[in-house]
Each structure stands twice: as C-alpha cells, then as structure tokens.
C-alpha cells in the first residue's frame, strides 16, 4: 500500500491511508472495555495509527456511537422516529422506561447500570415501536415486553 500525505495531519506527518481506514474499527475496540473513549484510549489509538490525538478526537466526535463520557453498563436507545411515534412508541416508550429506571434521556442510573438515550430510526419501522439495548434490537415493544427486558437485565450479574 502506498503512503501519502494527508492534508490536515500534523506537521506533514506521513499517514498510511490503509492504517487510517482502520480508525473506526480501532475506536470500537478502544471503547469496548469501558463503554466510552478515555483520553488514554484515544492516545493509544492515535499512536498505533500514526495520527495525532486531536485527529482521533475530531473523527470520533463525528459519530454518535463513540462516546466521550462514561455510560451505564446497559445503554438503552429508544427510537423516536416517525413510524415508532405513529405506533404509540417513541416518547411513550421513553417515558415508560424512564419512569421504571428513574432517569431521563441522557442520564445514567446512580448504580451505573443503565443509560437512557433516544435515537432516530432503527430501520425497524415495520415492527415498531423499537429500541436497542447494547447491541440487541427489540421490536414490537409493549409495556409487558419492556418489563421483561428490564427485569432480565437487572437480574444479570
């Protein structure tokens, strides 16, 4: 793979474009343990890929799945898209989950177990309402199914 000078990089540093293309994958690995990107993790990624810390920050901050702040062990992302709204989901699900956990969107429970977030459309509009918990998608949500999901997660050690 030929290397080339990538504009915007530090002081004309030579960046290997093939290496750079690994950045998103590297960031996923870097935040797997902690759930978010620590300063140290960013620095390690930058060093490995021959980038500056600020280049890594700048790229990571563009993407919502990379987090700069700590999150709970389980991240709940409720879809607030149009089709979920038309199916009595969206805010209604946010309120239901929020009331059960005692948090609002953007917040984490005091025991560090759950973070509640809202997202736009999870490509599950035909099986709305939908939400994601960590890497799993839950469709056709009802109060009963939400109860089940949360109880199972609370019981997990």
């Amino acid at each position, binding site marked *: 793979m030929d290397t080339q000078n990538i504009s915007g990089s530090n002081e004309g540093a030579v960046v290997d474009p093939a290496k750079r*293309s690994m950045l998103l994958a590297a960031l*996923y690995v870097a935040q797997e343990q902690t759930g978010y990107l620590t300063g140290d993790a960013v620095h390690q990624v930058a060093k490995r890929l021959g980038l500056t810390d600020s280049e890594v920050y700048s790229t990571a901050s563009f993407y919502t799945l990379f987090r700069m702040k700590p999150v709970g062990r389980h991240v709940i992302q409720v879809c607030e898209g*149009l089709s979920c709204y038309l199916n009595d989901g969206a805010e209604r699900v946010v309120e239901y989950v929020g009331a059960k956990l005692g948090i609002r969107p953007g917040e984490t429970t005091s025991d560090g177990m759950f973070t509640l977030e809202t997202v736009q*459309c999870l490509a599950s509009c035909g099986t709305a309402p939908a939400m994601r918990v960590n890497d*799993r998608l839950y469709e056709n949500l009802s109060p009963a199914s939400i109860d089940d999901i949360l109880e199972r997660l609370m019981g997990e050690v």
Partner: protein
Amino acid sequence: MAQHQPVLLANVNRPDSEKIATYLRYGGYDALRKALKMPPETIIAEVKASGLRGRGGAGFPTGVKWDFMPKDAPVKYLAVNTDEGEPGTFKDRLIVERDPHSILEGVIISAYAIGAHRAFVYIRGEFFLGVKRWIKAISDAYQHGFLGRDILGSGFDLDVSVHRGAGAYICGEETAMLESLEGKRGVPRAKPPYPAQKGMWNKPTLVQNVETLANIPHIILRGAKWHSDIGTEKSKGLKIFCVSGHVNRPGNYELPLGTRLKEIIYEHAGGVRMGRGIKAIIPGGASTPIISAEMVSTPMAFETLQAAGTALGTGAVIVMDETTDMVEVVRRITRFFVHESCGNCLPCRVGGKRMLEHLEKLAAGTGSKQDIEDLEYLAGGIRGRTFCPMGTGMVEPVLSALRLFRDEFVKRV
C-alpha cells in the same frame, strides 16, 4: 390481489435462511458460475438492458454506472452501501440479516464485471446482527472458493472486507461513506469528480446499494428481458416496499415497480387501522415530499411519483391516518435531519436549526403566523443551496406539508 412469486425475498422466510448451505440448496451461486463464463462487457450490457435502477434512493441506471468505471484503470473498488438510515426504510437490514449471500453473490458478479479486486462493505453501526451475518457470509464464501484467489477456477480474484459505521445518517451518502471508509469524519465530498472517477483512496469506485446488488444474480440467471418485462416504461423490475405507520400489516412487500400505492396499502398491508381514512402518505422515505390521500392511485414508479411531485426514494411508504397531527409529523422529521446534519454547510446546519425552532413553537401552540411564514421562507432558501442533497431532503417534508396541510399549521397559532 395479483399474486407474485417473491424473488428477492424468496429466501428470507426459510429456516436458516442466512446460512450458505440453505442458499446453495436453492440455487445460490449458480448465477456466479454463469457470470464467470461471460465476458465482463456482456454482463454490463445485460445489466444495462435489464433497465435496473439503483435502489438506494437516487434511482441511477445501474448498468450505465458500471460503464462509467474506467476500463483501463489498474486499481478499482466496489463499495457496498449497507448504511440504511432513511426513516421508514427497513429492507436492506432484512436482506443482510436473512439472506446475506444473495447480496454477496451480486457483489462478486459486479466486481467481476467492472474489474474490481477489492470490495468494501460499509454497514450501519447499529446493525449488530447484520455485521455478524455479513462477516459469516463472507468467511463461508471464502471457504467455498467464491472469494479469494482464482474464484471457481476463473482466474478472477476478489477480497471483501466489512467496515462498521458508527451512527451517522449522512454516511449513507456515497461520498460521505467513502470518507468514513477512509477513517475520517463523514463529510460529503464535492461532485464531480464522481466516485467512478475518484472514490476510495482516489481510485475509481462503484458504490451500490444492497437491494440493487441482490437483483444482479437474478438478472444474470433469468436474463435482462425477464427483468425489463416487469414494471413500467422507466422503472423496471421488482422492488421491496417498506410499509409502516397506521396500517394493519406493516412490513416489506416485494412487488413490481408500478404497483399502485392503494394496492400496496389496502391489499398487501391490510388497509388502515380501525378502518380510518388516510390523511397523508410519505411514499419514499422521510426525505421525499408528503402526498395526500387523493394520490393513492399513483403507481409506485420513478416517473409517476416524480410527475406527482414527489419521489420513489427508497420505496419506504409511511401511511398516516386522518387523525394524524401533521405539524408534529413535520417537526419530528425535521428534528431528524437537523440532528443528522454533518454541519459542514451553513444552509443545512443553521437553516435546519431555525426551521426546527419555528416548528417547536408551532407544535407547542406558542407560535404565530410569522413562524409559518419564516418556516416557509427558510425552507425555500435552503432548497437547492446545500452542498449535498440532504438539504433538499430536509425541506421537502416541510414545503409539501405547508402546501397540503397549511390549515393545520394556521390552526396552531
């Protein structure tokens, strides 16, 4: 109701549909065997003659795009768009999760036709199961000799890798996707140069949607004429329509292009819930103009929807019944686009935010007539003045709703 044998979705409901053994049992990779014995130019001619147009939203003729790929360039790439994020759309996720080999077979044939030896699969970060299915499908294809060196003894080599996005709708736009594949912020590039000239790492790159690619094996096996016999004059073949909203049976329906909206809604999707009437329909995903119930006889095809003032987009039909609050619908869609603006150009970034402020006020009942006028003025100003087509997508719902349902906005002030 007209009966149609599913083609693109024939496999998805079979048990273990995602496995290579299932795919092979029903004739999988036969098209690849056939294609590898055809000269690449013949394949391109066949795809051109089929009339296939891109299923990712823009509807560009696929064979023509293949022909744009420079024949003499030593290094070329194929990029597979699995970023599906247009609100209302949920077809690509279905194919990736349940029938990844149908796409992969299309990928290999397309790469062979354009002379690419490397393909990049870009997949939306949220599609965790899809990522797993893509990776498994690719590794099984290597094991069976459908990927790697000298594929099926043809002398053709191809490597495919999977790359996860990380939560950014704009990365579905082809040039933003290339930036993201290169490990950068997903900001769209200026066009021209088009990806076919300068794409991934500045090399000629063919970008294709997942549903488009899944059509390729069928066109190779059944022939261009089979495909061009289905559909309308300018919209050929079968299309997966994603139906959601206030219908009794939401879901993916594979039907010929040109099927009337009312047939899709009333016959396939089971009609409107509680027997209510329709107020509005979004025919092609959140960025296509909203239409009223009067348009339900419109055939779902590129040219007919364009004539009706809207667009086929991704074929995502969102049905809203007579009780729907259109101010809230528009506020919600606008909030999506504002959230997803990459922030690089002013009309989209700032104009979008201003539009949302007016919509929030109107939806909350604290707006005035001036808010409606400002909203319309802003939307008109953003249209056509943004760096990439997302800005236009952002204002279409606003402008169409103000045209069709203005009284609902007026009642709120």
